[in-house]
């Protein structure tokens, strides 16, 4: 199974980015092979609007079933839900710490967006 983490860096020790839509990168971790790839999210970092929507489509395209991020707004959540991706929020300092918490079952699954959108 693939898990996506929002991050500002490019490895497991990098900080977990509290923002989802405008995170600099997404780390896609494969729990079957214990390997990961990194997807750059630069276009959305600078998007005028709809960053969360497009980031959610990027996550869906990665084939992930789980997303771990800091916060998730309503539009991104709607896309993730439609794509069947479970969203977990965490304030863990690094991707590795968030992964450990996820594996230990210590992260809570979001049933709804946890922050307001920026546009409506």
């Amino acid at each position, binding site marked *: 199974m693939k898990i996506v983490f929002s991050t500002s860096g490019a490895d497991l020790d990098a900080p977990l980015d509290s923002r989802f839509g405008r995170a600099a990168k997404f780390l896609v971790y494969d729990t079957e092979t214990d390997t990961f790839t990194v997807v750059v999210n630069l276009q959305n970092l600078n998007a005028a609007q709809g960053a969360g929507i*497009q980031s959610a*489509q990027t996550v869906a395209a990665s084939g992930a079933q789980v997303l771990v991020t800091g916060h998730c707004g309503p539009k991104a959540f709607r896309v993730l839900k439609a794509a069947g991706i479970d969203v977990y929020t965490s304030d863990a300092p690094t991707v590795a710490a968030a992964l450990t918490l996820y594996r230990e079952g210590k992260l809570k699954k979001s049933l709804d967006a946890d922050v307001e959108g920026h546009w*409506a």
Partner: protein
Amino acid sequence: MIVAVASGKGGTGKTTVAANLARVSGAALLDCDVEEPNAHLFLKGERRGEPETVSLLVPEVDEALCDGCGECGRFCEFQALAVLGKRVLVFAELCHGCGGCLRVCPRGALREVPKRIGVVETLKADAVTLIQGRLDVGVAMAPPLIRAVKAKLPQEGDAILDAPPGTSCPVVATLRETDYVVLVTEPTPFGLNDLKLAVAVVRELKVPFGVVVNRAGSGDGRTWEFCREEWIPVLAEIPDDRKIAEVYSRGEMIVDRLPAYRNLINTLWLKIKGSHD
């Protein structure tokens, strides 16, 4: 003649200038600051007729026809359509109503449905006709409503457009296809910084323009220096006078309450008109 009153910085006195010009000239006044129309506070007109609802046409998906090809989502610059497998999610609040998604859909699976964004209403204040747009709370799409306000421009006679502050899309929507732009500024570093941005926009739009310096006497001389260097006419200077602020704070008009300034506004109007001949 269609005259727009704009500024980079907010709070420089656009509405004061626009409303007073309308009063002395009898021109129609169109409040294009649809996120916060306030010219009516000064003109205090009676509403004529019912407010007209303005809608934007946004896409709706016929799921029976859609095969999830994703063309619409790739076309949309504003992420108003998200395509996931065979599902299309529409985010109507992000849609600019361009209709492009309908054109690129190879299966004719999209149709347009109206989404209300606000109203346009007409008020009559003595000789002045005031037309104003009011954007609904929670709506971010001002330009289509501004275009609906401008569609009410009188066929004949003069019109003054009170523009929103700033230099973004709503301002461009207001300034397009006008004959002259009055940029109201204040002689402060903030005023000058934003004036420079506004000048760049108006030059891009290729509309003749001049500057009104409001609260002259405050700040410093750099605004005049800038105008001189850039060959921009300073059409009028409104002094930094407490009496003007008092009249304004009561929702009254300078030309009604302060006869000493009536000539200043009259002269400003004549200069604007003169630039068009």
